[in-house]
């Protein structure tokens, strides 16, 4: 189990224990965390699980594939620290990860 904190831009936050091997998106969906829609179900086809990753965690994540970066172009207000949460797989190394959901997903 790994602690993941989901914040929204208003500052509300929720810290959950997410099972290793699940994605950050699945952790949110299974626990009804608002702000992550994941319309396509995790196939990197929609950009509605878009999150901002806290800077210090960015380097610890495996680099985004080209297809993910292409998809982030389609996200709502993408920034430099944008990732699709369906592509972040939870591991021990990510214990304490903080992600922030955008104002909206679509």
């Amino acid at each position, binding site marked *: 189990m790994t602690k993941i904190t989901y914040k929204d831009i208003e500052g509300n936050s929720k810290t959950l224990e997410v099972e290793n091997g699940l994605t950050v998106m699945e952790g949110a969906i299974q626990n009804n965390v608002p702000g992550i829609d994941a319309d396509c179900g995790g196939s990197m086809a929609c*950009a509605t699980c878009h999150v901002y990753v806290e800077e210090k965690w960015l380097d610890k994540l495996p680099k985004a594939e*080209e297809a993910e970066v292409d998809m982030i*172009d389609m996200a709502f207000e993408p920034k430099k620290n944008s990732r699709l949460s369906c592509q972040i797989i939870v591991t021990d190394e990510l214990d304490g990860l903080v992600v922030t959901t955008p104002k909206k997903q679509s």
Partner: protein
Amino acid sequence: MIKKDVIIIGAGPVGLFAVHQLGIKGLTSVVIDNLDKAGGQCIELYPDKPIYDIPAIPECTGKELTDKLLEQIKPFKTKFYFNERVEEVRKDKDNWLIKTNNQNEFQAPNIIIAGGVGSFEPRKLSLKEAENFEGKSVFYAVKNKDQFKNKNISIFGGGDSALDWALELSKFSKITLVHRRNEFRGAPHTLSEIKKLEDQGKLSIKTPCQLESIEGDNNITSITLKYDDGKKEKVQTNIILSFFGLIMKLGPIAEWGLNMEKKTISVNSENFETSEKGIFAVGDICTYPGKLKLILSGFHEVALATVECFKRARPNEKYRFEFTTSSKTIQDRLGKK
């Protein structure tokens, strides 16, 4: 009023296979879709990307799968209503009545909702003031090129639509292409054409930056871009064209009184009927214990749902299960000799 045995909402792979499963059972159908062509997510999201989990097809693209399905249902000569969205679903005794945004009316004892994740709509600019100019100087599609002649046009986006229109409109307008990062994703040929135009000074590229503000009262006079390093730049602009892809919106489906779970429709896994008799949901839009959002699951769901459709459309006939390999009736329906 168009009368059929079944109205299919959604022309994605599962909607197309529904035509097949109904056709071999001797039932008539029509297909309604908000997009301008068949294929649904396969065509809009991954036309060129491979799919590896269609049984007996080791690899095919979304476009190939769509084309094959269209070929498979050709014998049934089913009519498609594209660019139409179902707005209203009403009950009339044993039938359902459907009205679209084009004011077409349909009647059938059965509706199969194969709506994926809902209807596709262009993703809008996130800047609030863009709304005020929408349809006047902010556009999300090009319907009539002439309206973009001799203008200062700022095009947003980094994909094929943005690049293709930048090329096309640069023939008679001044184009600024704006993207949030330096890399564009487009066909290599398109990219080199764009580069050429930039070198000739016929098109200017602004990256990595995003739209900061829009200036103008009734019409746009200029826009301000903000670069990643915080620098800002004003660009003379009359027209904004934005191509950030499509988003999926459930739309009016949520208001049809069906039992829903989040953004999906609850069905039983015996015949995929919803909480309303005669309305079925198949493919990504339906949910039941163990549901997987796979194309192959959708194919299975529609095969079972159409059996129940038969019972409702032909209450006085007995449904007889048949194999396509051995049934003379089915082969006749497929036009095979």
